[in-house]
C-alpha cells in the first residue's frame, strides 16, 4: 500500500491562496488505509482550514469536500465532473498518482497536492506505518529471507551487515532494527544460513529509464485468421 502524510496547513494555505473555491478530494483506497486522505482526514482538513480562515480574519475561501473510491482510475473520477464545475481548484489528498490522474482527467483544472506521498509500506500497529518496498524493479527477497535490505537497511547494502550494527540495532538510528541481523535470524530459522556466506554482486545502479511502463496485454492482430 502507498503511504502518505498530510502536508502542513501552512503549505496548503500557500498553494490554495489564489483560488477562491476549493474542492478537497479524498481517496478511498491507499490514502484512506494509511490515514492520510480518507473521508475522515478530508473532514479534519476541511475543519482545520475553516478554523484557520475564521481565526485569521482574512478568510475568503470556500471549501467543498468529496471522497472518491480511488483517484488513480479515471472512471472513478466521473463522480467529480459536476462538482469541479463549481470550484476553482482541487486539493487532492490522494497520492501523487491520484493528483496526476485528476489533472489528466480535467485538463483545465488546477490540481494541488494535499499530502506528501511517502513510501510503500504497511501498518505496524494502529497509527504506525513502516516502509517495506522501494519499487527498485529488481526483487531480491528470495535471497534475503523475505526481508528487503534495500528499504530496511539504512545503507541499502546487499552484503550486510556492515560494521555499524550494534546489539541488533542500526548505527544510523539505534531504535531501528538492523535489517541484516533480521535477515540472519530468519535465515537461521529457515536452516539456510549458508546464504549469508554468498557474495551478492552489486545491483544495477544505472538510472532506471523513466517513466516505466508495463504492458501485460499481448500484441495481437484482430480480424485476420492470425496465421
Amino acid at each position, binding site marked *: 500500500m502507498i503511504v502518505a502524510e498530510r502536508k*502542513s*496547513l*501552512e503549505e496548503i494555505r500557500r498553494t490554495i491562496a489564489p483560488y477562491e473555491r476549493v474542492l478537497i478530494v479524498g481517496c*478511498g*483506497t491507499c490514502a*484512506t*488505509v494509511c*490515514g492520510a486522505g*480518507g*473521508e*475522515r*482526514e478530508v*473532514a*479534519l482538513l*476541511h*475543519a*482545520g482550514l*475553516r*478554523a*484557520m*480562515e*475564521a*481565526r*485569521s480574519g482574512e478568510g475568503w475561501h470556500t471549501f467543498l469536500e468529496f*471522497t472518491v*473510491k480511488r483517484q488513480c482510475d479515471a472512471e472513478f473520477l466521473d463522480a467529480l465532473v459536476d462538482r469541479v464545475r463549481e470550484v476553482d481548484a482541487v486539493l487532492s489528498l490522494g497520492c501523487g498518482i491520484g493528483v496526476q490522474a485528476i489533472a489528466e482527467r480535467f485538463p483545465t483544472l488546477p490540481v494541488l497536492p494535499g499530502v506528501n506521498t511517502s513510501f510503500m509500506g504497511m*501498518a505496524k*500497529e*494502529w497509527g504506525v506505518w513502516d516502509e517495506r518496498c522501494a519499487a527498485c524493479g529488481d526483487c531480491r527477497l528470495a535471497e534475503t529471507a523475505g526481508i528487503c535490505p534495500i528499504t530496511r537497511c539504512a545503507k541499502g547494502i546487499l552484503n550486510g551487515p556492515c560494521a555499524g550494527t550494534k546489539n541488533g540495532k542500526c548505527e544510523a538510528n539505534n531504535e531501528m532494527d538492523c535489517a541484516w541481523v533480521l535477515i540472519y535470524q530468519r535465515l537461521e530459522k529457515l536452516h539456510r544460513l549458508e546464504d549469508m556466506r554468498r557474495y551478492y554482486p552489486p545491483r544495477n545502479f544505472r538510472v532506471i529509464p523513466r517513466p516505466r511502463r508495463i504492458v501485460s496485454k499481448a500484441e495481437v492482430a484482430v480480424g485476420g485468421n492470425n496465421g
Partner: protein
Amino acid sequence: MQSFAIHNLENHHLARPKRAAEDHSLIPPCQAACPLHMDIREYVSLTAQGRVMEALQVIRSGNPFPSICAHVCAHPCENACRRAQVDKPVAIRALKRFAVEFGGDRMVECEAETTHDERVAVVGSGPAGLACAYYLRKLGYLVTVFEAHSQLGGMLRVGIPKYRLPREVLDTEVERLARMGVEIRTNARVVSLDLLFDMGYKAVFLTVGAHQGLRMGIDGEESPGVIDGATFLREVNLGLKPSLGERVAVVGGGNVAIDAARTAIRLGAREVNILYRRSRAEMPADDVEVEQALEEGVQFKFLVLPKKIRRQDGYLKVNCVRMELGEPDARGRRQPVAVEGSDFEMEFDTLVVAIGQAPQMPGGFGVRVGKGSTIVVDPVTLTTNRVGVFAGGDAVTGPATVVQALAAGRQAAGRIDDYLQHRYPKDAAESRETLVGDLRPETIEMIRRIGRIEPPALPPEARTADFTPIEMVYDWEAAVNEARRCLRCGAGAEILFQDKCASCLTCLRVCPYHVPYVDATGAVRIPADQCQACGVCVAECPARAIVLRRPYDRRQVAGELEHVLRSAAQTKPRPLVVGFCCQYGLFGTGSLSDLWREAGGSIWLVPVLCTANVEAHHILRAFEMGAEGVFIASCGEQCARENTEFWVRQRVEKARRVLSEIGLEPERIEVLVPSDHNGSTAAEQLDAFAQRIGTLYLASILMQEVRS
C-alpha cells in the same frame, strides 16, 4: 410478539418521534423478554444521562401503569439481561422506579377522546382488566369496568401485600383511569354475560383472575386454622386482621407463599415456617423476596410435604414426610419423592396453603373452560367460544405475573378494537431482528466490572412491625451509576457503507473488546451481538464507513455542538470556552453542572454520550465558531469502559497539532479528569483552564491592538 399496533397507537399523545426507518439496532434481550415489549435499553440509557423525564416518557409509551410495574414487576427483563454474563444484571425494575418517582409520573395526565359509539365491558379490575380499559379508552371507546370487590385492582389490591405495593400507587393509577373517562362499577359481581350484552355492551373482556386457592387434598384440610393463601392475603388486604396464633406454617414455594409468610410475620406471628417439598433451587419465588423473607425471620423447611392434619387441643398437628429430589420432569424440574419412613409431626396454630390458585368461573358465563379451570381462548385474538367475549390475564393463563396480565390487557384492547371495527386482526410484525447469542469470553474479559447497586431498603427489624413499603428509591447518583452498567445490546456499531470500507482493519485494531473480525471471504465484520457501542471505531474509521446503529447516537455530538454554538453566538460570551462532557459521568451525576452554573455565561457544555465519540474536527469546529478554548471532561476511572481517556487524548493531540499549525496555542485544548496527578478536582482544573484561556484571550487582543 404481540400487539405492536397498539404500541404505536399509544404514542400519539406523547411527543415521541416514531422509530426512524434508519434505525438498524437489534431488539435487545431485555425487550424481547418483556411481555409488554418495553424499550428498556432506551429508558435505561436516558436515565444514565440523567434525562429522567424523557425516560419516563419512553416508559409510559409502552406501559399503562409504570408505577405499579416499578414496584412489583417480576422483571423477566433482568433475567434476560446479558450483563449477568459479566457480573450481575442491570437493576431494571429499580431504575424504572427511579424514573417514575423522579420523572414525575404522579403529575402525568392521560387524556382520551371518545371517538366510537360502541361500549365495552371489562369484567374484573386486575392488571389485565385495567390495562384493557386504559387502551380501549385511548382508542376512543366507552369502557365500563365491573369489579366484585369494593375497590379496583384485583390481585394488585387483594393479593399483593401493601409493603410491596403501596396502595397510594394503585389509587393514583385508578384515579387517572377514572379521569380518562373509564366508568367504574365496584361491588358489582357479574353473573351473566347475556345481561351485559342486553345492557348494550358490544364486547366483553373477561379477566376475573385466579383467586380460588388450590387444595392439597389431604386429610384434615378442612380443620379450622387451615386457610388458603389467596384467601388469607385477601382478608388481610381488605383490612381484616385474622388471628393467627404464634406459630404459622405456609405450604408452598411460590411468590404467594412468600407473601403469606411475610404477611404473617407482620401480623405478629412469632414463628413462621415455609414448608416446601423441593429445595431452594427449585423455588419459583423471586430470589430477592426469598432473601428478604429470610432477613425478616421466616424459616424455610425444604423437602417437606404435609401428609395429614389433625386438630388437637386447639393446635394443628401436621404430619409431614421428608422428600428427596428424583429425576427431572419434562420441564427439567426435579421431582420430589417421599423418603420411606421419614414421617414426623409438627405443631402449628395456623397453616396457610399456598400451592397455587385457579380461576373460579360463574356458571352463567357460558365460556369454555379448559385445564385448571382456565378459560380457553385463541392465543392471537384472545376470543373465547362466545362471540364478542374476549378473555385474558390469570383467568386464562393461571396465576402469572402483573406484567403478563398488562400485556394481555393491551393485546385484548387491540383485538377488541379489530373486532368492533370489523378488521382482520393484524399480526404487526416487528421489522427489526432480535439480538440473540451470548457474549464471547474474550469480550466479557474486556468489559469493566461494575457492581450492581441495589436500591436502599428498610432494615429487616424496621420492616416487620407493620406494612410500610420496604424498598426505597435510588438517589440520583446511584440511579445514574446503575443505569450506566447497561451494555446497550444491539445498539452498537455497524459497517453501514460496505462500498466505502477500505478493509484497513482500523476498527479491528482499535476495538477495546476485540469484536470486529475478518471473515473467511476477507470482509471485515462487526458482529452486532458482541459490540459494546463504545463508538471508538466509529470515530476512528478513516473511511467513515461505520456508524452506530441508532440514528440518535450518530448525530449526537455534532448536533449538541451546533446547538451550543448557536446559543453561544446569540449571547456572545467572551471569551467563549466550549467543553465536551461525558453525560454519564461527571455531567450526568451533576459534579460538573454546579461548576458550570457558577462559571457564568462563558463556559458552554456539550453533553456527549461518551467522550470517546468526540472527534478532532468537532474540536476545530468550536474554534472556527469563535471558541477561545475547548476542554473535554473525561470521566476517568468513573467510566464504564476501559481506555476512554486514551482515545480522548488521541483526538486532542490531533486537534492540537492543527491548532499549532494555524498559529494558536495548543494549550487552548485541555483534558479534564475527575482527579488529576496533583489531586485537584475537575472543577479546580476547569477553573485553572478558564483562567489560562482568559489570559491568552487578553494577550491576543493586546497583540491585535499593537498590530493595528
